[in-house]
């Protein structure tokens, strides 16, 4: 039981939760505004990880700086994806009708494409680098400096997002769009520009998270997928479209994972994550924090 009280576990849970929050937030934004289930989300994260890796090993750019590059690149990808593909898809009514069930398959296909293209170009080998390897001790708990930086950056970005959505005009517009898509257009919100912004922001957050993750984990074309799954679990847990819910859900899932694994074994991690996933979908598909019946 003592192990449960250790600072180490708490720190692990916090770091994981903060990273999950970044990824889940991006996914939830895209779903909330456009009802698109971006299964390729984790792959954007993976690309962000590669940016940091190549930036560090080839150009000696520290990850804290390549953060911005990764964010920009991912946001750029989002802009391209939206302008070329999804803007058209969202305006064609015939396709729009099929969109929810089908966006899943479409993004699944895109995910397969991204993962395997990356594998073709970069090879499937895992890459890692060392950065800020030193261990820092705070209040009796040791934590790697790299993880500490991850935690701080992730939490800061999450906070920035929360403030953005709470207090800025654009943030308000996004929230309006999530709540009532058609009504938002009626009151004069430029839905096309907001959609574009959301795509860029959502992808950007994922790319950012990827950079942070690359500091502590190995990078390969396939690392994105577990994060996609975790993000899905979180946004369903927290309630689709519920931004604050996904923040809470991120830490809840991270907690379940970290403490669950500590109590059982590391091979149980996936069982726990998928178990929560199935349970939520079957028992409370609207999520823990959304009121009302199933999200449809």
């Amino acid at each position, binding site marked *: 039981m003592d192990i449960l009280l250790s600072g180490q576990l708490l720190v692990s849970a916090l770091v994981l939760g903060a990273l999950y929050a970044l990824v889940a937030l991006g996914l939830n934004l895209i779903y909330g505004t456009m009802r698109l*289930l971006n299964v390729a989300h984790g792959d954007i994260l993976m690309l962000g990880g590669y940016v940091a890796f190549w930036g560090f090993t080839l150009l000696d750019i520290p990850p804290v700086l390549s953060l911005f590059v990764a964010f920009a690149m991912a946001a750029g990808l989002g802009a391209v994806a939206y302008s070329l593909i999804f803007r058209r*898809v969202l305006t064609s009514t015939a*396709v729009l009708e*099929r969109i*929810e*069930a*089908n*966006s*899943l*398959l*479409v993004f*699944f*296909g*895109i*995910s*397969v*494409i991204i*993962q*395997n*293209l990356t*594998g*073709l170009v970069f090879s499937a080998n895992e890459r890692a680098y060392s950065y800020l390897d030193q261990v820092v001790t705070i209040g009796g708990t040791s934590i790697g400096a790299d993880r500490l930086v991850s935690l701080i950056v992730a939490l800061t970005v999450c906070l920035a997002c929360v403030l953005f959505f709470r207090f800025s005009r654009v943030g308000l517009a996004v929230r309006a769009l999530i709540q009532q898509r058609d009504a938002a257009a009626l009151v004069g919100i430029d839905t096309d520009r907001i959609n574009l912004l959301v795509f860029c922001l959502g992808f950007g957050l994922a790319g950012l998270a990827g950079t942070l993750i690359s500091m502590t984990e190995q990078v390969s074309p396939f690392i994105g997928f577990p994060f996609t*799954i975790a993000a*899905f679990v979180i946004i369903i847990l927290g309630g689709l479209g519920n931004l604050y819910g996904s923040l809470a859900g991120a830490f809840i899932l991270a907690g379940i994972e970290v403490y669950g694994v500590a109590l059982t074994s590391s*091979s*149980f991690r*996936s*069982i726990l994550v*998928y*178990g929560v*996933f*199935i349970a939520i*979908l*079957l028992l409370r*598909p609207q999520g823990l924090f959304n009121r009302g019946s*199933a*999200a*449809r």
Partner: protein
Amino acid sequence: MRRHGVFLLLMLAGLALGGVYPALAGDYYIGVGLTLLMWIALTQSWTVLSGMTGYISLGHAVFFGLGAYVMVLGWSAKLPLLVTIPLAGLVAGLLALLVGAPCLRVRGPYFVILTFGLAEFVKYVVVSVEAGLGKAGRLLFATPSLETLFYIMLVLAAAAVALCYGVRRSRFGAGLRAIREDETAAETLGIPVTRFKLTAYVLSAIIPGMVGAVMMLRSTYFEPLQVFNPITSFTIVSMAIIGGSDDAPGPLLGAIFLVVLSELLWANAPELYMVILGALLVVFVLFLPEGLWGRIQKLWRRRQAA
């Protein structure tokens, strides 16, 4: 009988062709044939649920994997094939029966990711169980010859095609298609929606379970991460969507097309094959949802009208 004449003829021709094939082809191509028959059996079964009702299952690998597991355990227990293969189907069907009722209440994309999550869940449970039993993979010895497996799979594939064809033209199938179009309206017209969905789900699980068992005899090495591989589920869905998922010829086309593609690319550029597969899925879902077969039918109808 007359209405189904073409089908019966084609089926007999296919069986005859399959019957002589192993004698004509070398070992490698028997293997390819076996793979093709496997995909045919899987996609035809999948279509009975997902093509007919619109409830897309992205986790059908769970039935395949479960069937493989039954075979592994049965083979070690020296049970005869005539017992284990049907048993594998039965176990798969039971799983579908068990999880079907709660799962089918979930609609649209949530059903899709739920089936995916379910397959992954079962996968990791099996991993844990095997680890708990101290097994790091299992080997099967003295398995039947490739030809024998080919013939068994031929039977399974034929059964799957017959099942899909039969369901599609039955009263049951008409009910399923109504469910796909509008579940509420269908129920109001007297169709027992819940019961039908569950039946379709169970039917779609049985043959994949048996297929998994047979393929286990081919690979002889049981590794949960392999037999419950989500790529299997993904490939099934892709084949059916590319070929067309409304009727038996569709998945057949899709399976043939992708097996040929895979033969051309897999050895030298597996990632390229996957990229193309992903791209095809995207294109077909967005722009050709009726699949190759549906497109062919449309062109045929247009020519008839002209």
